[in-house]
């Protein structure tokens, strides 16, 4: 009977291994998730405590330990089905090699620091502290965290953050490995150039008339600078799009700027709507937004609507302003010659009246 049971288990294991391999984590050599992916996998242990053995693979894939194999931490398990596993020892060496010292990675140094701290298990004279059960080990404070979005230390200026680097140096102690690796990573997480600088970099060539002529290019820098996108950037905004934001496909390497005639380009007519509606940009917009014209030149042939609207408003401005400015100028001038008139009779009458007027003698010409 026991034999039959074992065959049954093995066949289930084999079936599962063949069917579900595509879901299995790369580090999951023993195919542990075949069982542990089931939400209900649990039991009541010897102490009457409810234990859940379910592993949410999505959470695990986003955790710092995602590259560890199950057996790296659960060293006592070498076959399935298995007996109740021992408690994981975080200080043991795992398969990872710490890149600065080329040694097997372990949390031993952290454990040493912890043991030297107020939370350590020993008194300064080497004797055990009382109430050992109250003292924390790793898992009392650390659950399996998820990687959070890039956090910024308060008030830090550009360069190596002391507070940031201290977290690297607790493990990667040898040489300036931590410093150079920190810079390597963070320089890729932050934009190294402000949007304003990016526009300037592109304008080095695209703003050069000779280069444009040689390559038959439009003056896209000038027309871009007419948009609110460019104007906000000029005033210091970092949230409005520069050249790269629209000319590189979202998530693609920034070096891959393609002509708008290439079907995979971000500015290819069919892709424009997707580009405009990229996350953090016009997410809520409809694809119709893409008919917005970004590089407008106010030429009558290419952009008639803009040309005639501009003509109308400039014309209106000129008519209104010239009319009133002329009026103001003439009115100020008139005050200098209040009694003058082309008509001689009227002029003489005004002057005579002015001479007689006792109300405002100081106003005589």
């Amino acid at each position: 009977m026991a034999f039959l049971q074992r065959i049954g288990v093995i066949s289930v294991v084999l079936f599962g291994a063949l069917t579900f391999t595509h879901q299995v984590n790369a580090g999951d050599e023993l195919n542990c998730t075949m069982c542990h992916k089931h939400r209900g996998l649990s039991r009541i242990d010897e102490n009457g405590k409810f234990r859940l053995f379910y592993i949410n693979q999505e959470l695990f894939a986003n955790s710092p330990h995602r590259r560890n194999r199950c057996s790296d931490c659960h060293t006592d398990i070498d076959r399935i089905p298995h007996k109740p596993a021992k408690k994981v020892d975080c200080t043991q060496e795992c398969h990872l090699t710490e890149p600065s010292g080329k040694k097997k990675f372990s949390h031993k140094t952290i454990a040493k620091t912890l043991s030297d701290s107020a939370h350590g298990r020993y008194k300064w004279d080497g004797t055990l502290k009382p109430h050992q059960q109250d003292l924390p080990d790793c898992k009392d404070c650390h659950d399996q965290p998820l990687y959070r979005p890039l956090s910024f230390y308060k008030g830090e200026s550009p360069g190596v953050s002391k507070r940031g680097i201290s977290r690297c140096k607790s493990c990667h102690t040898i040489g300036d490995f931590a410093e150079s690796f920190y810079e390597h990573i963070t320089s890729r997480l932050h934009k190294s150039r402000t949007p304003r600088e990016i526009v300037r970099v592109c304008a080095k060539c695209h703003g050069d008339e000779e280069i444009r002529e040689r390559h038959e290019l439009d003056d896209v820098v000038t027309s871009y600078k007419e948009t609110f996108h460019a104007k906000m950037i000029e005033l210091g905004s970092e949230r409005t799009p520069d050249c790269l934001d629209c000319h590189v496909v979202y998530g693609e390497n920034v070096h891959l700027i393609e002509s708008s005639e290439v079907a995979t380009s971000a500015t290819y007519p069919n892709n424009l709507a997707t580009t405009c509606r990229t996350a953090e940009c016009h997410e809520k917009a409809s694809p119709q937004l893409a008919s917005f014209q970004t590089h407008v030149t106010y030429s009558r042939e290419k952009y008639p609507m803009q040309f005639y609207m501009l003509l109308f408003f400039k014309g209106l401005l000129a008519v209104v302003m010239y009319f009133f400015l002329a009026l103001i100028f003439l009115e100020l001038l008139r005050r200098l010659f209040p009694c003058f008139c082309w008509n001689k009779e009227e002029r003489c009458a005004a002057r005579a009246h002015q001479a007689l007027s006792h109300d405002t003698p100081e106003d005589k010409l």
Partner: protein
Amino acid sequence: MHKFEKLVIRDGEKFFYRFSIHQRVQHIVLFTCVILLALTGFPLRHPEESWSRPLYDFMGGTEIAPMVHRFAGSILLFLFVYHTIYWIVLFMKNRILPLKRAGKLTIGSFFQQILSMEMMPNKKDLYDIIHLWKYLLYFTTRPPRHERMSWREKFDYFAPYWGIPILGPAGFVLWWRDEFSHIMPGFVLNAAYIMHTDEALLAVLFLFFVHWYNVHYAPEKFPAATVWLTGYLTEDEMIHEHYAEYVKVMIEMGREDEIKPQHFGGATYQW
């Protein structure tokens, strides 16, 4: 009909009633919004100028200044609607209801009432403009005699009625661009952009040069007219700007013998 006396005499000086406190408050809200809009809008219109970055930073920078702009714009649009309802209510109460009670309300009399409204441009305004140009070009020595609202003031008044319906909706489309893209194509934003920025330039230039000349820079007004605060014009201002109205009020108040001659730019004229 007026709650206030048309003519108030204090310490021997005459003051002529012009704007109610309600109207003065509306004007204060109007110019506060317009000034805020200009200060938060023009740096964005000309970001490459040396003054624009410091001014924009002073107004809150790229995060806050747009909010200030949108807030002031919303208040201005609200004021525009409020003011329109305000004069319609006044018009119905003061002009149409009395007619209706007297049983004289016809389509003809209704339009007659509309055309005779204080702010409505009329034939006298056209004659006044022609007269003014004759005066400015030295064909006559007597300036025009304006009634309670001169054609310039009517032009000032109707400027927002042209400007706000253009600036307001265009501003709203640019503000809610993502939402509007569901009901209109993206190139409408190109049109809204031109409408908003170019009409704003006209409005600000007009206010700065023409309106401020009328109430600030003109020699008899400098440094500032006070009617927007007090609601009253002095006798001098009244004679200078609204001579026809001045004479009318003086006669109405039984002070015909105290009427002073018209004066303008240093010259005086018999009335």
